[in-house]
């Protein structure tokens, strides 16, 4: 073995074969846990240690801002640690060429499964540290050069312990993408955040003959007249309504009255095809919808707060 090889492994010492085998076994176990939709061993151990620590001696990690921390502290909300969940998902092959508007199931499924796995792992981490909620969950989509054709979701947030009054009566931790201030504001108004609802749908919309003509196929170039492209508009409606309906159903399943802070992320791309001698673009439309599910619980409400008109001098 060259010295260079040894250095990159940290100092050139030969590793103890027993330790190597133990490591291999741990890696194997982590993989099995991941396959079951759970978190790897290292993470589980870190969190178990945290959970066993006396809260008074706990050094917490969080991505809270100073203001947020001060506010949470005064409300008796104790940050425990930063928790995360992630999942990289391979998109199965599906021929992306259709003659009728269709949902591209493999893509929709990959997005939704990846997000679901990431959120589940986040929830498992939270349960492990014995926290009652995760505030400020950020769900990000990752993309890696080494894994092309795959989708990744990463969910990161701060696990917190809540005062008994704010805890979820069902016992399971609550995930919310609200920050600490918003979480408290809602509770003070008698509204309880119950979870995150999200869905993605990807649809393929082939251009009809009329659209293809309008868009400038053939020898005459694009149409000179203003007109709506009904088929594409309809495609956008279909994809959007599918995503919105699933999100509404999820919220219902969480026992919510409604969803606030809905964010819609829409992306359309074209696919050049030749149909009946006319070059035209079909549309692939991706809809991500995410929001915070909430439920009214008047018993949570603190004293009635009336907003005042203020003038910030900053």
């Amino acid at each position, binding site marked *: 073995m060259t010295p260079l090889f040894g250095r990159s492994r940290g100092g050139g010492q030969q590793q103890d074969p027993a330790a190597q085998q133990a490591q291999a076994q741990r890696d194997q176990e982590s993989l099995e846990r991941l396959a079951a939709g759970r978190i790897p061993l290292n993470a589980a151990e870190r969190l178990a240690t945290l959970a066993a620590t006396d809260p008074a001696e706990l050094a917490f990690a969080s991505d809270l801002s100073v203001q947020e921390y001060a506010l949470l502290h005064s409300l008796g909300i104790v940050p425990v640690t930063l928790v995360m969940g992630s999942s990289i998902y391979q998109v199965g092959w599906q021929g992306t060429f259709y003659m009728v508007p269709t949902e591209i199931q493999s893509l929709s499924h990959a997005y939704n499964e990846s997000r679901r796995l990431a959120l589940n792992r986040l929830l498992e981490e939270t349960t492990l540290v014995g926290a009652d909620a995760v505030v400020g969950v950020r769900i990000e989509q990752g993309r890696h050069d080494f894994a092309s054709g795959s989708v990744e979701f990463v969910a990161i947030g701060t696990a917190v312990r809540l005062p008994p009054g704010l805890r979820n009566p069902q016992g399971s931790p609550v995930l919310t993408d609200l920050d600490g201030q918003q979480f408290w504001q809602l509770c003070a108004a008698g509204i309880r955040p119950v979870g995150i609802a999200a869905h993605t749908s990807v649809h393929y919309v082939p251009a009809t003959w009329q659209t293809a003509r309008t868009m400038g196929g053939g020898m005459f170039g694009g149409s000179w007249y203003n007109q*709506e492209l009904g088929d594409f508009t309809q495609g956008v409606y279909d994809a959007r309504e599918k995503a919105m309906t699933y999100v509404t159903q999820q919220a219902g399943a969480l026992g919510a009255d409604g969803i606030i*802070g809905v964010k819609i992320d829409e992306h359309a*791309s074209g696919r050049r095809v030749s149909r009946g001698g006319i070059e035209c673009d079909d549309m692939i439309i991706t809809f991500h919808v995410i929001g915070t599910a909430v439920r009214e619980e008047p018993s949570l409400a603190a004293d009635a707060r009336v907003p005042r008109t203020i003038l910030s*001098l*900053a």
Partner: protein
Amino acid sequence: MAYDPSSTEGVPEAGRARLQQNRAGLFTSDLSVNEFLLVRQAGFRPLGLVIGSSIYHIGFQQANYRQNQEMTVLSQAMYHARELAMTRMEEEADQLGADGVVGVRLDIGRYEWGENLAEFIAVGTAVKHSGGELHRAPSGRPFTSDLSGQEFWTLLQTGHRPVGMVMGSCVYHVAHQSMRQSLRNVGQNVELANYTQALYDARELAMERMQAEALEAKAEGIVGVDLHERSHGWGSHVIEFFAIGTAIIPAEGSEDHVIPAPQPVLDLS
């Protein structure tokens, strides 16, 4: 596009089911927590996220190289497509029995793959007054407003209510300078009168159209006007001037309304 409050044209099966769920009591909204709480404080409850969209093929018009002129075909397209999106959104709101729509965003998406193609989308949160006070526009349609939840609350505090979003659009071709003009101006500080004139003209046309819409809605005034110019891929000499704002009227019984004095605070963050 004629306004038809009972129209679900183009709304797919899933969408009708969603509206049904919304009617049954589960709401969706894109309001932030602050906005949500303030809208409730103002006596409204959100009913659902309402959306209208239209994918539109924008026609073609040849501009005269040396002439300042409005591109009427393009102006028409921008007007018509926005109208389609807004009307569809209002119809959805009507389906939910809403008094109006707050926090409306009106976006235009252009895609590099579709030349002359644009997507117009209007999104907002349909709301209804919990006390049953009717807040619709005089035309009987749900009101629309691009004010945020905070602004909406503040506006109501002043004894006014929104009636509708009003807009004006003008797509204008700015004439190129002739060779002689350019040569005459070389090295000099001089106002380019024809350019100034063109931009003035276009802006005034857009503003005037917006005001005309407000007059038609019997509004007292327009707040939060946003006037911007954008080129939607028609080359540097063809520009759209777009004015949009929320038309307001005095709320019923607000003749002796007193606006509370604001309290100054010093933000420590």
